């Protein structure tokens, strides 16, 4: 009889978790997003000398080029597309759909800081506050991840905190912006992606 009730408790726990959390995120999408970010950052750093050392303006010997914005948007779109395709594949394997109440709630939680941050970044570009690009994107993305983590793996919360801290460091030391951005969006996406992948396999 005792064993039965223990099983009941584990079923309750299991259902509460399964019905309120979104576990179809693929670790590989984190790894790939990290790689795209590193390639994108490398492109704008080497080809466009984008490496602001002050809040406003650029080095006298480098110029703003709209390509930089296009590359950034390209990285973003590619990363989101990859995450979507891999989540679909994983959910299919788990016999679930990725469009359920939980994923909708998770996206809604993420969308508010992401849209606010995106608009803030674009408006800052308008004032040539190039030095704030890395901090803004890191901090708002970090907040979005912390919000989303309520509905998925706890590791996502850690990833969010890392982005926020790196964003603050990049605000404090503007010249470290690109480096912090590569560590946050690149390296830590890859680390957390591999961690999730290994954990899911185990």
């Amino acid at each position, binding site marked *: 009889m005792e064993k039965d009730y223990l099983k009941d408790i584990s079923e309750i726990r299991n*259902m509460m978790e399964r*019905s309120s959390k979104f576990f179809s995120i693929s670790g590989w999408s984190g790894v790939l997003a990290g790689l795209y970010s590193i390639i994108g950052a490398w492109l704008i750093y080497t080809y466009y000398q984008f490496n602001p050392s002050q809040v406003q303006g650029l080095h006298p010997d480098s110029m703003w080029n709209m390509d930089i914005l296009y590359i950034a948007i390209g990285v973003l779109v590619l990363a989101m597309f990859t995450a979507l395709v891999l989540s679909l594949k994983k959910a299919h394997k788990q016999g*679930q759909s990725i469009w359920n109440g939980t994923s909708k709630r998770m996206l809604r939680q993420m969308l508010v800081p992401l849209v606010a941050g995106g608009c803030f970044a674009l408006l800052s570009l308008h004032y040539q506050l190039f030095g704030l690009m890395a901090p803004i994107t890191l901090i708002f993305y970090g907040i979005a991840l912390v919000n989303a983590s309520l509905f998925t793996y706890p590791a996502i919360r850690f990833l969010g905190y890392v982005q926020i801290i790196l964003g603050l460091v990049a605000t404090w030391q503007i010249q470290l912006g690109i480096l912090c951005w590569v560590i946050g969006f690149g390296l830590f996406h890859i680390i957390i992606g591999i961690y999730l992948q290994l954990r899911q396999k185990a």
Partner: protein
Amino acid sequence: MKFDLDSFHKAFESRIRLGIMSALAVNEQLSFNDLKEFLNLTDGNLASHIKALEKEDFINMHKSFVGKKPLTVYKISATGKAAFDSHLKALENFIKHQS
């Protein structure tokens, strides 16, 4: 040792019903398809368990339309929530008295 067996509601003897209540306890509302997916059940099987819970007044059904598609969602009722909570309490007490 005092142990109140009455708190174990009959409706929760089925682990599937317990699962449905657990899912609805932590979600504002869930559609029929959400529940089907979480519990890995066939339409007919899930429908019969839902009917049993509705008969107890533990869950409420709402029908609406998304475009032209009908959407059926379920919510836990106040009665259901109370019964589920006291069931959890009873499980807790049972485990406590075991040790």
